[in-house]
């Protein structure tokens, strides 16, 4: 059987990636809406209340996905930034820049929902323990990356400086992940761990996994939207971009 070869390298060109991203956005947006609806339904109406924490535990279905996304997106951003440094193709740095604000938002959501969960369960909004502090540092790393990039006018230099920060900051992610094992902390242990069965009931686990999938699809959707904006803003003087915008009028 003849196998059709897709030339992936083709899509590292912004001119080719721009329309591809545009075609993918509706697909991921619909998946996001569906998964979010199902995840919230299962999380609020199917999953029973927790024996110890009552209804308050339902914060888990937004808190854990947000915290995971904040970490995943940071690693992904660092990988794209690294590829940008190594291969000097514009699209990688644009992807890294497109991920940062969404990652920052998820880091904020995980801190915010954590505070609202900590208050009734631990009796405090915030403690300076390893898990919480390293997550706060993650949030600041995102903000640092964004402000560093916007502070440097020359795009190439901004990309390179941002990439260095992203790569150095990646050390923080395993620290967050293992912080609940390495240090004594108020924060409970990981709910989901690789190579081990989850420490919650199957229906709760299902809701959690669906919400994580929803947050992934959401992240892909908005990252594609943002990378298209970035491509257009940076390449608007390129003939292909001018032509495309001329057609759209």
């Amino acid at each position, binding site marked *: 059987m003849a196998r059709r070869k897709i030339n992936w390298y083709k899509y590292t060109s912004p001119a080719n990636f721009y329309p591809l991203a545009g075609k993918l956005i509706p697909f991921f947006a619909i998946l996001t809406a569906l998964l979010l609806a199902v995840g919230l339904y299962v999380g609020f109406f199917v999953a029973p209340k927790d024996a110890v924490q*009552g209804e308050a535990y*339902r*914060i888990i279905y*937004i*808190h854990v996905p947000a915290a995971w996304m904040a970490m995943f997106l940071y690693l992904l951003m660092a990988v794209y930034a690294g590829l940008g440094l190594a291969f000097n193709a514009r699209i990688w740095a644009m992807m890294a820049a497109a991920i940062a604000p969404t990652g920052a938002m998820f880091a904020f*959501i995980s801190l915010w929902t954590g505070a609202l969960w900590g208050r009734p369960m631990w009796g405090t909004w915030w403690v300076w323990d390893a898990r919480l502090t390293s997550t706060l540092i993650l949030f600041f790393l995102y903000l640092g990356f964004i402000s560093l990039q916007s502070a440097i006018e020359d795009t190439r230099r901004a990309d390179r400086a941002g990439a260095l920060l992203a790569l150095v900051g990646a050390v923080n992610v395993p620290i967050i992940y293992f912080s609940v094992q390495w240090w004594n902390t108020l924060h409970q242990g990981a709910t989901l761990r690789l190579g081990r069965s989850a420490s919650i009931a199957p229906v709760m686990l299902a809701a959690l996994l669906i919400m994580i999938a929803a947050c992934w699809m959401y992240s892909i959707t*908005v990252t594609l939207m943002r990378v298209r904006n970035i491509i257009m803003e940076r390449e608007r003087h390129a003939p292909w971009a001018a032509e495309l915008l001329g057609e759209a009028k």
Partner: protein
Amino acid sequence: MKAWAQFFEMGGYAFYVWGSYGVALLLMAAEVLLLMSRRRRGSLRQSAEAPKMKVLKENETTT
């Protein structure tokens, strides 16, 4: 009706649960809206610059 009131009460944790989901969903919706308006602004600026581009293009074809 009563079942819904009980649902929104969240066993006395309404403020914490809805405060979490409310802010999270609000931020996500705001991000999408901001991206859409940024895209629109981009194409508006583009059409403002368009006449200049056209001239450039014509020069290119003539030389």
